[in-house]
């Protein structure tokens, strides 16, 4: 972000923090109230998933593209359990290891007819599920040219984030820590740097484990968080979803409010004058 844009944002955030309110989050020309986005994977059952998503207050909900089970022995599609008119469905390309594969999945997702958004994942390694940045950039360029609003899952590297922005991405989604790890925000500096330098929204995706992780992440000034496992694998996903909703709001407001400076020495908060003789 250039200095002018940063000053503008600071001015806007000052006004809104005084009011204790926030601007909507705008991605790819669409506005959203909630800065928390949630996935639909790994829940114990679909009823629990639907209740947790409702409790999270999320508007953007991610889904994946997979083969229909022709024998219907497994669960039906996600849309039997999640009303598509209540949520903004964000399809992902999870499980794709090449640009070509991710492009194929993205096109299939768009054909489902809900929207042109795609959460682009091109995975480079099965153990860490870290992104293949070369494949990611290739797919991001192609899909952006085809009119997709690309939200690119990426690492905490500034240069990749800048190149994704140049590639036409509608948002960059750096990780807090590896997918499904629940290790929290490992590189706050990296995330802050990306937010400072990139103009498109920065949504931290993956790695948030509990509410404090979400709060600290939002305090870095990012535009939102996407999470799945932290809710799905909580002992009580509905309660955790409520906690995450509050944590994202708290972290966002704390960022807008502007924290006090850090000091290496104590400073009394009570007057030192007027003491008894």
């Amino acid at each position, binding site marked *: 972000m250039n200095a002018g844009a940063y000053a503008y944002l600071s001015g806007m955030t000052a006004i809104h923090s005084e009011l204790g309110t926030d601007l909507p989050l705008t991605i790819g020309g669409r506005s959203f109230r909630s800065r928390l986005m949630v*996935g*639909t*994977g*790994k*829940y114990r059952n679909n009823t629990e*998933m639907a209740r947790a998503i409702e409790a999270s207050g999320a508007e953007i909900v*991610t*889904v*994946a*593209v*997979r*083969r*229909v089970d*022709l024998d219907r022995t497994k*669960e039906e*599609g*996600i*849309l039997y359990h999640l009303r598509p008119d209540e949520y903004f*469905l964000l*399809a*992902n390309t*999870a499980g794709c290891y090449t640009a070509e594969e991710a492009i*194929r999945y993205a*096109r*299939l*997702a768009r*054909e*489902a*007819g809900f929207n042109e958004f795609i959460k682009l994942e091109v995975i480079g390694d099965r153990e860490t599920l870290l992104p293949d940045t070369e494949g990611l950039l290739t797919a991001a360029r192609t899909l952006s040219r085809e009119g997709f609003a690309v939200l690119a899952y990426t690492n905490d590297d500034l240069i990749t984030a800048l190149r994704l922005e140049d590639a036409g991405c509608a948002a960059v989604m750096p990780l807090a820590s590896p*997918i*499904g790890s629940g290790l929290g925000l490992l590189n706050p500096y990296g995330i802050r740097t990306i937010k400072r330098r990139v103009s498109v929204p920065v949504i931290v995706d*993956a790695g948030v484990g509990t509410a404090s992780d979400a709060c600290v992440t939002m305090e870095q000034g990012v535009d939102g968080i*996407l*999470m*799945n*496992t932290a809710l799905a694998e909580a002992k009580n996903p509905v309660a955790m979803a409520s906690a995450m909703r509050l944590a994202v709001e708290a972290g966002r407001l704390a960022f807008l409010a502007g924290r006090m400076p850090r000091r290496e020495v104590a400073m009394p908060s009570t007057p030192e004058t007027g003491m008894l003789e």
Partner: protein
Amino acid sequence: MTQLRILVNGELRQVSGPATVADLLRHLNLDPRTVVVELNRQIVRRPRLEETALAEGDTVELVHFVGGG
């Protein structure tokens, strides 16, 4: 009437020909509004399902949305 051998989601299926993609979906009891169809790596848009004919040896992928993060 001929039998067409078609690979659907990786499984070999036989359908009575001539048949369209829409016929295949009806045969599989699938609502075309809930699936996306790829025929030999090309997406078949919904308005074209009724007019797109299947041929011996075709590869069809039928996908939908499932849970994911």
